[in-house]
């Protein structure tokens, strides 16, 4: 039956629309109640700084998941990008090093994109392979040890703030705004979303869907490499371990942000909130001195809850 008529927002619809925001607010309240130092400037600055990288990665992941794919390689691209950047910095200029690192990230994404879009392989398998290979290369390049970076201006950027907010955070906000705009107002964003909704219908509409599918992996790789550079500016070293598990964090963020893993549904704004939800959960547990192992358990359970809530809403709508 078709139901027509005036549109009154029901309670469940309200929750569906705002659940990410609600979760966000609840966590802020819990955080300020549980701990005395959560609301301190020092902690909030840290929070922003620590999550700039993963926030950028999540924006790339959003594009990939919108097409119905998944990118498991982002964590390893952070690792290999981090090492390559530190390695290049020993002998080359900052600009050159940044350029090469970004190129490597984009290339990793292009490999995934090629096999997914033009060879019809499963994104999960393809990016899993790229993930393994990239991590391996990270170890090979630095022979297992970490490389330190000595570039005062660059390290200053990592610690620097502008108007009290970490400089890295501005970059993340910039990328967020870009993705938000692209998804909301451009043909590219529309097509990427449509591919996740029904790829064959998009193709039969006379759109070269493969190019778009290919491109999201390149963007994701590029963003991961960007995160790698930000990370080294914060830590001052290139280590092959960097970015371990980032892919799962990024996926968790998108899920918390209400993005459908089947593709075709998701917005940049909610993913941004998801970044801070995940970030704050970790932050609260650090402040309350919950052990790292327990943190894993709690994070996992929260993600499970988020996904479960989404399915409940879907059912109530049907």
């Amino acid at each position, binding site marked *: 039956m078709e139901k027509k008529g005036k549109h009154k927002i029901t309670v469940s619809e309200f929750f569906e629309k705002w659940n990410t925001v609600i979760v966000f607010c609840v966590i802020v309240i819990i955080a300020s109640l549980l701990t005395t130092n959560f609301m301190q400037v020092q902690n909030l600055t840290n929070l922003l700084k620590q999550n700039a990288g993963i926030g950028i990665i999540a924006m790339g992941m959003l594009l990939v998941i919108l097409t119905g794919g998944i990118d498991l390689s982002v964590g390893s691209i952070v690792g290999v990008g981090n090492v390559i950047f530190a390695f290049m910095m020993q002998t080359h200029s900052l600009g050159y090093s940044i350029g090469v690192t970004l190129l490597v990230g984009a290339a990793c994404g292009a490999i995934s994109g090629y096999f997914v879009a033009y060879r019809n392989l499963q994104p999960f398998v393809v990016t899993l392979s790229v993930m393994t290979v990239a991590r391996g290369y990270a170890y090979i390049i630095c022979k297992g040890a970490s490389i330190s970076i000595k570039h005062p201006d660059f390290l200053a950027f990592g610690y620097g703030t502008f108007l009290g907010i970490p400089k890295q955070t501005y970059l993340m906000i910039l990328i967020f705004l870009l993705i938000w705009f692209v998804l909301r107002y*451009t043909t590219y964003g529309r097509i990427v979303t449509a591919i996740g909704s029904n790829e064959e219908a998009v193709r039969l509409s006379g759109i070269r869907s493969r190019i778009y599918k290919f491109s999201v992996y390149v963007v994701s790789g590029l963003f991961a490499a960007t995160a790698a550079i930000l990370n080294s500016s914060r830590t001052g070293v290139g280590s092959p371990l960097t970015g371990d598990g980032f892919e799962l964090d990024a996926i968790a963020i998108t899920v918390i942000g209400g993005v459908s893993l089947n593709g075709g549904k998701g917005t940049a704004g909610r993913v941004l909130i998801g970044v801070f939800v995940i970030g704050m959960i970790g932050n609260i547990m650090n402040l309350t001195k919950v052990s790292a192992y327990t943190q894993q358990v709690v994070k996992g359970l929260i993600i499970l809850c988020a996904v479960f809530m989404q399915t409940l809403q879907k059912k109530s709508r049907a």
Partner: protein
Amino acid sequence: MGKQYAVEMEEITKTFGGVHALKEVSFQIEKGTIHALVGENGAGKSTLMKILSGAYTKDSGKIIIEGKEISGGSTLGMKKAGVGIIYQEFALAPDLSVAENIFINRMNLGKGFISWKELNQRAGEIIDKIGFQIEPRQKVEELSVAYQQIVEIAKALGEDARVLVLDEPTAVLSPYETEKLFQVLRHLREQGTSIVYISHRLDEVFQLSDEITVLRDGEVVSHNRTEETSMDKIVSDMLGRSVQSLYPEKTAAGNETVLEVKDLNLGNMVRSVSFALHKGEIFGIAGLVGSGKTETARAIFGADKGARGEIVLKGRKIRPASPYEGVKNGITYLSESRKEDGVLLDMKIRENVTMASMKKVSKCMVFHIKKEKKYVEEMIRRLSIKSNGSETLTGDLSGGNQQKVSLAKWLSVDSDVLILDEPTRGVDIGAKMEIYGIIHELARQGKSIIIASSEMEEICGLCHRVLVMHKGLAKGILEQEELTKHNIIHCSVNNSSEQSLKAGGI
């Protein structure tokens, strides 16, 4: 003794969130008869049958099966009472054998282990009873759709169904298969099974049924014995108004050739097909499922790779190798299966309508959303798409309106040739007439249209000329004055292949 009823549904009422889906509907099925249930989409047919199958719970009313009142509301309970439903989407496990599917929920036949011999034997008996030959050991996925449907029927009978409900069973069948199915249903009727037959195809309803009940807006509008009513009466009952004819009057097509297809080949399904299409012409491609009409249509558009042959569009040779090139060439293609690859159900009407013509409403890849909305609202008005405006989710629309959204998408592209593959499949009669009107209007404006359809009535009613296809071969082209259902069938079966090559040529 009066009439014996297999099922009596009395004053059934069902509401969804305050909206009446059914208002005191009474519906009786006499034992051993075929009772057709017709009505537009949203009239309440499916809701009524879902109550009968136990998938929905009624708000009030009574269900009496073979004299016993049943509370309903449980699919298992209704199955036990003897009601079997066959939906449009089959509920078969494709990897399992026919016998396994028939006995899916009791493969051990009440014993502690599976006796394959007995299982296959008992399945064979049931299939024999229907009057068909299917090997019980064969995997279901290897069967044609028609045979799968027979397996569904066998499954219901295996569960001892005495009332069988079929929802649009012929939507995917060829006329030959449809005839076979009718034989089966008549056979079952003789054996005392009562059948509810839901269909949009009224000619079939009149061929098959003993009684016809028409539903409109959740109420029974009429209930007649089939021989005592007429097609016109049923159509006006369904629509709530009288209609003259389903099809608009044909206007003359132009003489200028727009598209020429010469010796088109694609695998086994398109074998040296040739024809010419004129300006303002509605050109039909008729044929059964598997005749190659869809493949021919897709090859001209460029949907599939590997087509050979010559396609000349307005004097220019083209080689469409992808839909992208097809659209660029000025050829558009409305696909056969709306839900699978026609419209994006999760997206808004607005986003669907401009999917193929984004450049019209954007600049440097950035949308001019206001302009887009205005344009789409205009299309919604022009095609009278029933919705809450351009921001409605396409998946919330009825089949007919979804199809209009799909049409709107292609009308937004400036094309010379519009190919429509099964333009009215699964569309109810009101929307069908509107779609026919749109097609007619486009042709009058000088667009050339190709319609591939397995509904022969539609082909005869709409087209100027028709290419008849059978097993990938062009069997001949029928001119307007020769267009009858009989001639199409005759042409598709009787012409020998040599003749057909000649006849198919230009």
